[in-house]
């Protein structure tokens, strides 16, 4: 963490030196650098596409929201970018047409479709593969992990969440010897099994799902064998077996609310928001969540492209300034996203530790 901050500081100071020590940048010069911001199409309530006509989007909105994207993480990025668009005469200038918004979900879907043509196996892609290739800054609910921090530049933690699970309020959990069902899955989630393992392990460690424990662990360790033991009934990707994943939360939430999934697993805010959007879906998240994950903004800084590196450095500088004091950007993003919904004690403490007293 210290090392990371040192790098950031270096980047920021480098930016400042460039801005102050060298010649002033001519605002009218031709812009060549493009800042590609990765946002998600459907990772509500953190990063998602709504509509350019959405009531949340107003003249106060920044470049991301103006394009119809919204959410907690998007709000933060958007506000920072808005600040960056103001030319204070000493920072590297940024023009609205320099900002390119990349919908990660669409890009991933295209990539997946392409890869799927070459293999019959299920193609598993990680959105972080796009960072550096098609995206410079990733504005989505990305948990801070050791691997990600090693590879990319990372902002301070911006939100705290936990892995939990939802179950339909009146559903009866299946018996442990009938888990291979053709039309129903025990657990539904989005993404890869690897990403899920830690969260599920925490849930199992807390004593949940005792009667399915062995089967879940076997399925997590060897998903291929689990699929062979309980093959899908047909070619369509209907929920079945122990672990079932889809590409979007919309899809999983819909199946969950239809009763085709017993437990909907994921980061608690995301799964709750998606389940809530299915009218009439009566679910419960239980008394507690099971892990603590912190979301941050990740970026890929290529020092070979000095101008872009400076812009990203400037992005982090503005971000740090905006969140560290009272009237924090974190609070504004929270209110814009969650309204008057109460914060859990832990999230409250997190906010307090980031910005002090409000």
């Amino acid at each position, binding site marked *: 963490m210290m090392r990371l901050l040192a790098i950031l500081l270096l980047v920021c100071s480098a930016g400042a030196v460039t801005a102050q020590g060298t010649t002033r940048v001519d605002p009218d010069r031709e812009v060549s650098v493009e800042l590609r911001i990765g946002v998600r199409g459907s990772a509500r309530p953190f990063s998602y596409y709504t509509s350019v006509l959405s009531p949340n989007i107003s003249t106060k909105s920044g470049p991301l929201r103006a394009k119809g994207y919204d959410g907690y993480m998007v709000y933060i990025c958007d506000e920072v970018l808005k600040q960056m668009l103001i030319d204070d005469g000493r920072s590297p200038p940024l023009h609205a047409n320099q900002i390119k918004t990349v919908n990660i979900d669409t890009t991933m879907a295209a990539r997946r479709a392409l890869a799927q043509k070459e293999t019959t196996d299920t193609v598993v892609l990680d959105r972080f593969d796009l960072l550096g290739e098609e995206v410079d800054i990733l504005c989505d609910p990305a948990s801070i992990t050791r691997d990600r921090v090693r590879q990319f530049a990372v902002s301070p933690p911006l939100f705290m*969440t936990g892995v939990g699970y939802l179950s339909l309020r009146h559903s009866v959990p299946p018996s442990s010897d009938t888990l291979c069902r053709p039309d129903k899955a025990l657990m539904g989630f989005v993404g890869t099994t690897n990403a899920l393992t830690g969260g599920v392990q925490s849930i199992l460690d807390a004593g949940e799902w005792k009667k399915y424990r062995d089967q879940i662990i076997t399925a997590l360790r060897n998903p291929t064998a689990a699929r062979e033991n309980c093959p899908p009934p047909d070619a369509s990707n209907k929920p079945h077996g122990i672990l079932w994943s889809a590409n979007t939360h919309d899809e999983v939430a819909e199946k969950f609310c239809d009763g085709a999934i017993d437990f909907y697993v994921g980061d608690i805010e995301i799964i709750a928001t998606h389940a809530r959007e299915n009218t009439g879906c009566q679910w419960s998240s239980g008394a*507690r*969540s099971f892990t*603590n994950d912190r979301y941050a903004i990740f970026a890929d800084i290529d020092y070979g492209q000095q101008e872009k590196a400076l812009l990203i450095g400037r992005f982090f500088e503005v971000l740090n300034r905006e969140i560290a004091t009272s009237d924090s950007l974190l609070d504004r993003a929270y209110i814009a996203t969650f309204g008057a919904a109460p914060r859990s004690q832990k999230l409250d403490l997190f906010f307090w530790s980031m910005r002090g007293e409000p």
Partner: protein
Amino acid sequence: MNGLIYAGVVLAGAVTLLIEAYRNYNSSLTSIPFKEHPILQNVEVAKLCTPREKNIGFMFYSLLYLVSYVVILSSTEVYELVSQAAQANSEVGPTDALIGEGNDPFGLAGTQYGKPIFISAAIISIFSLGALRPVESTMRSLAHRLAGVPRGVYNVIEDLHAIPFHEFPVECPKPLTDMFDKNARKVFEGSYDESQIKTIETSLRTVDYLAPAITGKLRIQYFPFTQLDKMSELSTILEGKVEELKDILKKPLEEEETDRQKVFHLANSVANDTIALFAVHFLRNNRAIKHVREDTAISRIYDSIQRSYQVELNSFAMGMLLSICAAVIAAFGAYYLWVVTVAPITPEALQASVVQRLETQEQRPEMIAVCRMTPANVGRFDAPSPGITDAGLTPLEGPEAKACEAAWNGNLKTRLSERRQLILAESFWAVFGVFLACAFAAISAVFGRDVRKEDNSWPEWKIRRIPFLRLFSMAIVPALLAVLGVAIGSFIKFWVDSSFNVTENQIAFFFQSKWAFFAMHAGLGFIVAIAVLFLTDQHDNMHDATTFFLGFVFALIALGWYYLTIIAGYPAEFMRGRPEGLPFGFETRETIIFGAHTFFFLIFFSIFLEITEDRPGDKRSSAGLKPPLIFRPKKAKAA
């Protein structure tokens, strides 16, 4: 919150309760329960108990306090968990414990630590309130009953008063009556005290027949179990009084009014004292009189007081036993019909498993191919499969035929027995929760009535003037206990289903989804309690058929309530339509499965109330009806 400290606080709450229970129990031992009877004045409960009984009584009494404590404390824990889950649903952010929260020994100011103490204090204060005295006295009476502490004196006294002593045969010795006849009757006859003769005769006969059993040496013979100093002392006092009466009647009575009055008052008071002391001896000796010879006065008395003993408790026990069996059978039937209609075992459903079985046995592929057909000699299926008509049942020939048929029959048999087992288990568990609810409600009503009778605060009532308020107030505790019973029963099933390991989340889910169903059982407990009280109180005044009919009416009301419970307590997602070909729908099925127990219990209870009871002078005797054939005590014929 630190678990160890919390456990300590819970323990402290329990100890506080134990201290209060000890204080309360001790004060109850020093009370004088039978002060209406002169001879029993100054007789404390403690003096009629052995130390062993006192200790066991305290054990049971404190146990009941602790049970209330555990029930209330765990209810608050469950409530907290459910509200926490509800809060977590609306909160944003992680909802697990904060770092260090579980091990912080300094956060003693936390409200959670105070909860057990608060509950313990609440129980103490609530039980000492006058309004809830009946609950406390029911608990104490239950503890006394369990420990064998003598109680129920008033019932025995009532029974003794009802015995027609004048009908006893002449052979029974009656010295005082004979003395009266010889020395005093004439003095009364012709005087204006003539009308007192009958009363004096009854009193003297009472003393003649009862006193020998509780005075002198015969006392040890008839009541050998418990010998307490106090009882010997009381016997000596009674003996003195009987002697006093004897001394007056020994010689011819003077024709003085004061002498006649003296005889009258003394005879009455000695008779009352004798009855009271006899009742105490009787209870003190486990409601038994030993070494009784046939056709003596004492054997007749024994028969009379045994007859009406514990009719409602016996009916409760038998009713419960039979209703469990009947309800499981009814639930099994309803489930079975439903499963057979909704998911029948058809040849098609079995085909895959037959093939799999043959493949596991590594049979030849051509044989497996043949066995894909359903051989004609296979046992009965629930329904023909839409794909396989009669023509599909192929008469197989050759060496494969037998192996094929064996595979089909084997699989069919396994599937059928698995299904039966599963349905039976489900039926049992469904009945189990309702059984607890009904049992808690009924037994608390029976005990409550018993205690009120013992307190002399449950007067007889007429069917035209039903004491609704009294019945309703008595049915409140059973209603609450019914909710507790069904919650405990369902939770036990849930606990067993989850391999005895439930997590906080599961508990929260469980109660969130079932609270409405549980709450509706308050109504059921209320109906059961009213029915039990009504039938127990009134069956003496009604003909057998009327009692049975009333039992049936109450049973129907309970069943109707269950129908409402299903409609109101079940979430909409649970409801299903009526399957084609079945005479009943989902709501009716659930009503049968869950309501059958209460339905049968109330019917059996009313039947057993009538056939196990035989009170002299009841409507059977007075109406000249034949006594029931079953369960009638042999000796009762004499009365």
